[in-house]
């Protein structure tokens, strides 16, 4: 079995247009949530979100590329470009077939769908752009990354709602560990901040109209964000041989399924996924110093997740830091686990624990150290990153210091 390490990271989200900018914002506890600005927002009852602001595709892509790339593909390409640059990888003819792309997304090219349905149904047009299908398909972003970097090995896209990117990174980890590839660009992306996207979520009545306050007694729902994060996962031997800087080691991966309710979270499912990741990594619960929580800010998730963490860690839960960075970058749905992995790597590499901001008051059902409002300096040797999806599909990654 090969060891798997991370040798590059890239992102674009409401907190920043790069990994360093995003980590700096997390350290400062900056809020990326604000008023939504897209067309017809006045017809929504929920009008806040974590948008990527001041984003001009023309600064990054040619006119023809823009015609071919949905917003989610653009985000994924920029994150992948940054990750590849940082890794210093040169993909030659021998490495290309041993390199792939495994991404998670829940919405795929939703904005392309939204805009084109609007044009044929609302505006009565009878013609759409010929590339609507290849723009909107869920694997478009992974495909464009493979083309941009000449990666000809195993590639795929996974879609498990809010756990998509954790499932994707877990799959990338297992692929390299089992010898199926040397390099996998992996992570996740979503860009669903458009009228149709939010209208559907609004109907479910789990969105907050004012703020995302994970674990806080006055929390009242989630806030949606957008963006991407992509990492270079690499066989440890390969990374060592080329003298690459290693950001962290991917130590283990755990998955479980609730098999009970489509949307109501299960303590047992969350617990089994965390236990599975610890077991796979060969980590004792006491070795973990930080958990990046799923922490959506809904009543049900946060209460259930805290109970699951207590059940897994027992007495050690009192010494564990648990934060939800969704309070800053919003819930990026299929991309959220990837953006949150940046906080995990920052904890291991820089000894900075990202806070849970907008935290007002303790909730007895969430009585853990949630790193309220202000980042903290702390050395941690191992971390977990939780993702618990609608559909009852749970995916937890375990990372340790390089």
């Amino acid at each position: 079995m090969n060891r798997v390490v991370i040798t590059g990271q890239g992102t674009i989200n409401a907190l920043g247009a790069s990994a360093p900018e995003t980590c700096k914002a997390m350290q400062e506890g900056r809020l990326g949530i604000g008023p939504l600005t897209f067309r017809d927002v006045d017809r929504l009852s929920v009008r806040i979100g974590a948008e990527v602001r001041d984003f001009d595709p023309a600064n990054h892509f040619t006119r023809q590329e823009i015609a071919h790339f949905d917003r989610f593909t653009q985000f994924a390409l920029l994150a992948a470009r940054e990750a590849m640059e940082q890794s210093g990888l040169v993909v030659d003819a021998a490495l290309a077939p041993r390199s792939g792309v495994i991404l998670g997304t829940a919405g795929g090219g939703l904005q392309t769908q939204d805009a084109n349905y609007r044009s044929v149904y609302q505006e009565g047009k009878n013609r759409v752009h010929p590339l609507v299908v290849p723009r909107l398909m869920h694997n478009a972003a992974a495909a464009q990354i493979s083309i941009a970097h000449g990666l000809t090995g195993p590639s795929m896209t996974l879609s498990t709602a809010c756990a998509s990117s954790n499932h994707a990174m877990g799959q990338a980890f297992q692929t390299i560990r089992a010898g199926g590839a040397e390099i996998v660009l992996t992570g996740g992306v979503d860009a669903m901040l458009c009228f149709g996207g939010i209208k559907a979520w609004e109907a479910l009545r789990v969105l907050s109209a004012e703020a995302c306050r994970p674990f806080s007694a006055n929390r009242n729902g989630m806030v949606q964000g957008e963006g991407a994060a992509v990492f270079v996962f690499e066989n440890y031997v390969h990374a060592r041989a080329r003298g690459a800087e290693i950001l962290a080691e991917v130590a283990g991966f755990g998955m479980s399924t609730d098999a009970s309710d489509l949307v109501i979270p299960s303590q047992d499912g969350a617990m089994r996924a965390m236990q599975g990741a610890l077991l796979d990594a060969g980590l004792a619960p006491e070795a973990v110093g930080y958990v990046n929580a799923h922490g959506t800010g809904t009543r049900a998730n946060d209460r259930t997740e805290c109970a699951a963490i207590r059940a897994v860690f027992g007495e050690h839960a009192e010494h564990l830091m648990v934060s939800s960075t969704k309070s800053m970058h919003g819930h990026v749905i299929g991309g959220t686990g990837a953006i949150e992995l940046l906080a995990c790597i920052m904890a291991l590499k820089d000894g900075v624990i990202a806070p849970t901001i907008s935290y007002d008051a303790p909730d007895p059902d969430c009585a853990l150290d949630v790193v309220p409002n202000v980042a903290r300096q702390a050395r941690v040797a191992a971390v977990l990153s939780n993702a618990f999806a609608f559909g009852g599909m749970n995916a937890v990654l375990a990372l340790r210091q390089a």
Partner: protein
Amino acid sequence: MSASVRNTVLSLIAEQAFLDPSEIRLDALPEELGLDSLSMVEAIFTIEEAFDISIPFDTQTAEGASNQKNIGALLAQIEALVGEKAEI
């Protein structure tokens, strides 16, 4: 008006709960009828569609307050909203 509003609301709640309208007691809480918060979100949606009104219904308050309202209180709220709409 009120009798027909009442009959429509109770039959829509009954349909969501897989019960007969006569089994919907006004003093019952949704959960006593087997309706969890998501089922109530669905029931509220069908009632909003039936009367073309917007019913404030929050699954995310600290107390889960709206969901703890009994059927009679919900009915009174809906009758008021339908009444307001008729006055416009």
